[in-house]
């Protein structure tokens, strides 16, 4: 195990999570594969422990700063498993490449609209 790599990417993932409101899985998963030699499946499962703790601490800090609407957040969290089911069904029905390209297109669309919304373009 490469402890330094694990600690460094862990810190970066937490930082991104706090700054951007994401869980950090994008960094946790490869860190666990490369530095702790976990399989992809184990890394996804293990990363959820870190994601949950980071998100809980981050939400608690943001509540202190007055940036949390608890009711909305919990509602999104509780309803989302329905979407997971839909996603799994979709993943088995549609070619992976088509899904990747559509998700990328959705993200580019969001980037464009958010940039407009914030007066960045």
């Amino acid at each position, binding site marked *: 195990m490469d402890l330094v790599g694990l600690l460094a990417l862990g810190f970066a993932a937490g930082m991104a999570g706090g700054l951007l*409101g994401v869980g950090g899985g994008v960094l946790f998963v490869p860190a666990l594969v490369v530095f702790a030699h976990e399989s992809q499946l184990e890394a996804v499962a293990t990363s*959820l422990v870190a994601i949950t*703790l980071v998100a809980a601490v981050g939400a608690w800090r943001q509540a202190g700063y007055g940036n949390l609407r608890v009711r909305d957040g919990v509602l*999104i969290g509780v309803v*989302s498993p329905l979407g997971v089911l839909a996603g799994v069904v979709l993943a088995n029905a549609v070619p992976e490449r088509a899904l990747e390209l559509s998700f990328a297109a959705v993200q580019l669309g969001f*980037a464009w609209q958010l940039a407009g919304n914030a007066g*960045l373009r």
Partner: protein
Amino acid sequence: MRLAAIATAAGAFSGLFGVGGGTIIVPLLVLWLGYGHREATGTSLAAIAVIGALAAAAHALYGNVDLWNGLLIAAPAIAGVLAGTALQQRISERAVAAAFVVLLLASAAVLVL
């Protein structure tokens, strides 16, 4: 209703790509519900905490969770999230939005490549 739609979309993308719905939740809270960027990221973290706990429990039932490694990488990450949330309060909403746009572009690039 819109919250339920956001939840379903975030869950679907998690189910498809195995990563959390943060890149879906934050933009939709801003664009559909008129959230400020700081509020959107804070509320997204609360949603992810719930989603992550449910998913971690499901994976733990199959014995795929290495709790020790999870806690090991969570320790520096908790320090990171404390720093990240503190830093976010010191920069403008516009800067938070710009950083998020960069994250979306990077994520889209990774998916395409």
